[in-house]
């Protein structure tokens, strides 16, 4: 198995497209910026000259020859003329020309104090900053380059969240811009302890990732572990936090998400206050929070904005709905094909009358309808927005009703399929609701073979799997198994706010010892 694994992984490595500037990007062989402008000009032209939007111009700056580099498509040209060119023109009046890096820094303080400036040492940095929309100024004879942020600030406005809607509570949601997202969090938590650490991941995309946490609250071991895992990520591209989620989570082969994601700033801020760590990925509105436990997926921020009685009731409904969404079809199969004696007498004749004339076994019937529903659902998501919803509703109605009238499926079955489908949407996190879709099919099959005994076996297997899961060292079923009494205030019901003073205990305790080492060792045994 190991041999096979190695071969596959080697194949994958070779498959990587090597970019033209491989050498420049390799930090280990970092080349310093040359002091000769001609050399610089040649080098960067070689990297970028096939691009129509690359602009490299010679300028006079502070009595020196200089180069100015930027990508026209990435920058705001107004900013360049206002923030750079005008100031560069002013520098012409300066008497003594600058020749050292030190002088460059004082020069920056004189003329570019109000703009976002970075000093660059290496060639690969120059390339990266140009690619990120900065304007880079190189001056003859100085080893240090100057990068000025001129990125065009075109971005989506802050809108309402589409994926996690609530009725009462803040309506804003994250956008694709990392700085906007950080500001949305910082606006909610005005605390100097709020740390934002920056990472860069992805060989080709160089995506910014920001880890945000409250230093006084977050468990330092977990923070270290997250840093370690993010640094260990070795891929070409990160486009969404989903990529990162899969690369840093504890276990991949599981239908359950072990990292929480949200596009609601209030949810993320609340998690950070609890002591969790958020990871914001540039280019996506979905922010990851970790570690996460199973019960977190049944909580919605609105639970805390409305009365605790109502919230508790709704939360219990969510648990019931999730349970129904994966075991209801199995119960139907178990009762109608194995254990007729367990159906109440009055019901059994009605059920039997409905089944009369249905040509398929109940298993085939239910798989047929479930698959049909999954197709409709997928089509509904992928179709253009204008037709999507209408088509999916009509499809469900027409197919459901027609199937019953044609005598292909029984009435009750349509009710069951519809109920499970609706119940699986109740979970506030889409990816968690999806878990029930997978489990449902597995449970249907095992019940079809062994009856309710099989169903119980399936449930036990799922629960055991859940008990063995960990999210960054925290047991996935944390307040329930291991059972923590003081955390029960906010699990199945929500206690009044006055009593919810403490942060969850499972975030603090010492159960995170040997988390990654543990899982790796077990993986090695197989």
């Amino acid at each position, binding site marked *: 198995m190991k041999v096979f694994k190695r071969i596959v992984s080697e194949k994958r490595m070779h498959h990587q497209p090597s970019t033209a500037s491989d050498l420049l990007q390799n930090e280990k062989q970092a080349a310093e910026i040359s002091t000769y402008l001609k050399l610089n000009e040649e080098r960067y032209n070689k990297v970028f000259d096939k691009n129509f939007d690359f602009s490299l111009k010679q300028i006079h700056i502070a009595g020196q020859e200089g180069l100015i580099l930027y990508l026209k498509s990435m920058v705001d040209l107004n900013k360049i003329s206002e923030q750079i060119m005008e100031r560069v023109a002013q520098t012409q009046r300066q008497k003594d020309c600058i020749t050292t890096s030190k002088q460059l820094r004082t020069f920056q303080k004189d003329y570019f104090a109000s703009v976002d400036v970075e000093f660059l040492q290496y060639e690969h940095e120059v390339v990266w900053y140009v690619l990120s929309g900065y304007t880079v100024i190189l001056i003859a004879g100085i080893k240090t380059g100057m990068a000025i942020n001129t990125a065009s600030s075109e971005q989506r406005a802050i809108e309402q969240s589409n994926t996690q809607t609530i009725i009462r509570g803040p309506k804003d949601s994250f956008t694709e811009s990392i700085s906007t997202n950080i500001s949305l969090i910082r606006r909610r938590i005005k605390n100097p302890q709020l740390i934002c650490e920056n990472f860069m991941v992805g060989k080709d995309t160089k995506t910014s990732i920001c880890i945000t946490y409250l230093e006084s609250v977050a468990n330092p071991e977990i923070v270290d572990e997250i840093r370690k895992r993010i640094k260990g990520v070795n891929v070409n591209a990160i486009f969404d936090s989903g990529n990162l989620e899969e690369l840093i989570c504890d276990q991949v082969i599981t239908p359950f998400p072990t990292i929480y994601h949200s596009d609601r700033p209030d949810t993320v801020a609340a998690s950070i206050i609890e002591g969790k760590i958020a990871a914001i990925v540039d280019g996506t509105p979905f922010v990851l929070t970790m570690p996460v436990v199973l019960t977190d997926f049944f909580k919605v921020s609105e639970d805390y904005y409305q009365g605790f009685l109502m919230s508790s009731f709704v939360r219990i409904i969510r648990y019931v709905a999730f349970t129904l969404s994966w075991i209801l079809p199995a119960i139907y199969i178990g009762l109608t094909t*194995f*254990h007729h*004696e*367990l*159906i*109440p007498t*009055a019901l059994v004749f009605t059920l039997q009358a409905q089944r009369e004339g249905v040509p398929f076994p109940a298993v085939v019937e239910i798989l047929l309808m479930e698959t049909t529903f999954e197709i409709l659902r997928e089509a509904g998501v992928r179709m253009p927005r204008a037709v999507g919803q209408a088509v999916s509703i009509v499809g469900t109605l027409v197919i459901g009703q027609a199937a019953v009238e044609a005598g292909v499926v029984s009435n009750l079955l349509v009710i069951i399929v519809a109920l499970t489908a609706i119940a699986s949407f109740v979970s506030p996190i889409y990816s968690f609701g999806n878990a029930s879709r997978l489990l449902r099919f597995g449970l249907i099959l095992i019940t079809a073979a*062994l*009856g*309710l*005994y*099989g169903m*119980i*076996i399936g449930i*036990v*297997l799922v*629960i*055991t799997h859940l*008990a*063995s899961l960990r999210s960054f060292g925290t*047991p996935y*079923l944390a307040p*329930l*198994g*291991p*059972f923590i009494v003081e955390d029960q205030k906010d699990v199945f019901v929500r206690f009044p706010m006055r009593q919810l003073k403490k942060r969850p205990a499972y975030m603090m305790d010492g159960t995170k010892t040997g988390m990654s080492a543990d899982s790796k060792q077990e993986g090695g*045994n197989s």
Partner: protein
Amino acid sequence: MYTIKKENISLWQLFVLILIFVIGTTVVVGAGEEAKQDFWFAELIATAIGMAFAWGYYYFLRTSNGKNLYEVIEETCGRIIGKVLIFGYVIYFFYIVTRNIRDFGEMMKVTILPITPIEVISITMMFVVVFIVIQGVEVLARVTELFTPFLVFFLLLVFFLIFASEQIHFENLQPFLAEGFKPIFSSVFPLRSSFPYGEMVVFTVLMTSVTRFNYVGKVSVVSIMVGGLLITFSQVIQIATLGEDVKNRTLFPLLSASREISVMGFFERVDILVVFILMLGILIKVSILFYGGLKGLESIFNMSYRYFIIPISMCIPLFSIVNADNIVEHFEEGLLVVPYVLHLPFQMGIPILLLVLVLIRNRKNKKVAGGVKY
């Protein structure tokens, strides 16, 4: 050399493990023909004996400085004899595992899956046990923690539903102590004390993994008390519902009693709950015993117990079926042979012997130490 990785369980986890271990199968299967309608009282006495057992095992581990059963055996009996003795325990635990699996298979066969081969039931059951045990005792403890509320809730629900169906006739419990204490004692000893309380000997392997060892004794005793009360209550319900005559002629009295349930014409036919209770109970019990046996193999061969899981788990369903040709042989073996040949020596004889050896050695050590010091 292989070093054994230390896994920890909390006191609460130990509590639920013992609770489920004790009530798991006992609430459902029938026993106690001798004591007739006083069997619930016999059960109370057995609970007291069980508490003594639990404290005894804790005392045994405490005097041997928190070493587990296998380490104590190896230390006191030497390498060769020690290993033979450990092997005896391993076989003993695995044998109880096969008996439990067979019990469960028979129950499924006669109640809800009459045509499905018992092999399939045994194998699937063992598969689940392997899936739990392979992940370690921590996961086992967590799974138990999760199942406990369900199990206890379903048990109480069954009691409540029987009660609500007006099926409980407390006059069935009379006359009390009609024949004196003799039949009660004969049903308590050795049968009811060795099963399920004596089987607690497997916890001498687990107790040392508890983080706060000093409280283990108290927690175990309280746990047995709670479990014993639940079992007693279950017996009261069974006798009051079915009458001692029918109850003693029934294989699984709680199942039969639950078939009497009919509340509001809708809450009827809920006996699957009892199957569910029994299944979870057996699952946990078998997992604990299986883990205990595997730990023995670990200490004999000095290899991680995970290496033995797959081969041993393949043998167990086979032996559970080969052990007895039919259900009568199975039960006769369990009632007439096992308590005397296996339970008595392994649950009481050897531990007491070991305790004496440890005490003697402790005294010697103290004398030696005392001589040096003063």
